[in-house]
């Protein structure tokens, strides 16, 4: 069994045994290529009452290489309106890039990071270059193929 599979299986066992943190739910994990989780931010925040879905995609190099993580955008789920989240669901967060990712991170720890990213948002706004990225530049289907530049150290 590949290392990535064994590692994901252990993460799944942990989730099923210990449960997920508050506001995070496992929606679907029936293979070792892609998982879906939902996150919501509880308490008094800009996204109160909204539930978002995250799609994780893993390659055979996981956890050495980062998973491809994006918000699900479909008829039911929308990407949160946030300065680091593009309308196609792509997320600009350093821990998801090759520089910021560390193999000790896990699916749940990524969810927690994104949850806190939403929790500390100060305004509901798309990234300033949203149209440029999503429409004009024909953003790649996989966010890992985009090289993001991280400006903001606050969240």
């Amino acid at each position, binding site marked *: *069994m*590949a*290392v990535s599979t*064994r*590692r994901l*299986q*252990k*993460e*799944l*066992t*942990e989730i*099923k*045994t*210990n449960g997920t943190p508050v506001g995070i739910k496992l929606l679907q994990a*029936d*293979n*070792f290529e892609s998982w879906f989780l939902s996150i919501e931010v509880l308490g008094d925040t800009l996204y109160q009452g909204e539930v978002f879905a995250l799609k994780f995609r893993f390659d*055979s190099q996981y*956890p*050495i290489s980062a998973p491809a993580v994006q918000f699900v955008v479909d008829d039911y789920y929308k990407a949160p309106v946030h*300065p*680091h989240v*593009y309308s196609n669901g*792509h997320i*600009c967060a350093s821990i998801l890039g090759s*520089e910021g990712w*560390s*193999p*000790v991170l896990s699916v749940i720890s990524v969810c927690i990071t994104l949850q806190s990213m939403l929790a500390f948002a100060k305004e509901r706004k798309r*990234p*300033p*270059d949203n*149209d*440029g*990225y999503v429409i*004009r*530049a*024909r*953003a*790649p*289907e*996989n966010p890992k*193929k*985009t*090289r*993001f*530049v*991280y*400006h*903001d150290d606050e969240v």
Partner: protein
Amino acid sequence: MSNFLDEDVPSPEDFPPPSNAPGLRELDEALRCNICKELYSAPVTIPCGHCFCSLELPRLAKQECPVCRAPANESQIRKNAKLEDAVRAWNLARPLVLNLVKEEERRRKRKEARQSTPPPVDGYRNRVGQASPKKRKLSPQTDGEESDVVEVTASQLAKSNLAGFGIIEDKGKRRTRSEGRSSSPPPRPSSSKSPQEATCPSCGKMVPFSTINDHLDSGCKLYLKSDAKQKQKQKDGWGNIFGNPETGSSKAKGKGRSREDLPIEDTAEPLPKVSYGTLKPKRLKEMLQELDLPSTGERDVLQARHQRWIIIFNANLDASERKSTNQLKQDLAAWEKAKQSKKPTVDEKKYERENHQVYADLIARAKASAPPKAQPRSSPNEGPLSSPISVDGDSSSDTATLDEKPGMEVDP
């Protein structure tokens, strides 16, 4: 959901939560590598004090600790012999401890069942937490206790996950006293399986009955039913990939079999890293031949093989119980096989030709709309929080080129 979890992967959650078995999960967790989450194999330490499997660490291109991000470089990696000792002991003790703990849990449940209404029987792992943390002593049981034991638990256990551990007994069968008392009862074969095999109480796999104790002592590694078969398969695969092994490695044979099969000796030096950029394919082939490794394949295959060999070989030196050269070669072959099966097949040249027009358009538009120079911003905080820049020159599928300007500002 359950079918893809068929293979049992040991994890700290095999143990009951801290309320029932304080420290056991933590102990199991502490002896696992943070990267692969397996019990450490050949653990190494870096200056910040964090430990990883030797095989995992060289793959980290970044010069920092994966856990705390403290700077660390390869020359600072040291093997951690004491941790390895601890892991080896835990590997041996784990099946036994697991067994004892489960026995304890079962007794607790039985007692509760007798004292009050039967406890809810959702999954074993989830449920154990709500039981009282009071510990029971492991004392010999009375006959009376023993006899009602099976009747109470058989139905409950059938619903719980314990079924997988081979503890469920067939109806009408009854635990004999001697087996019930022993601390790690050898699970008997159930009627549906052949009498020569038994389910391991720890790993849940089928093991020849006569070897079950040795299997447990080995940390569930030895005497697996399919063990021998798998090894043979790997060997075949090695031959399939690289042609006939008999002719391919004639040099290896000449050197004498016995040495190749012996663990690598203490005096062996780690292999130096190689800068492949300057090497000609021919030289690379020679280097592989010097190592008695297959020298067939494209340049990048040769390089990957050589790189991986250095990692495997050097990681093996960090282990106190070393593998033999032949074992390492098998590991390398297995790795290469796994890698090949996942290789994507994208014809880059073809893609480039097909999308030539799109690229040309984008370049033309970029040239037309490009401002003379990026505006320096007054304050870094006011600018765009994030901006994507596409990967240039990457012609693999669905890569976008972002030529429009909004996201291209550069920090002053």
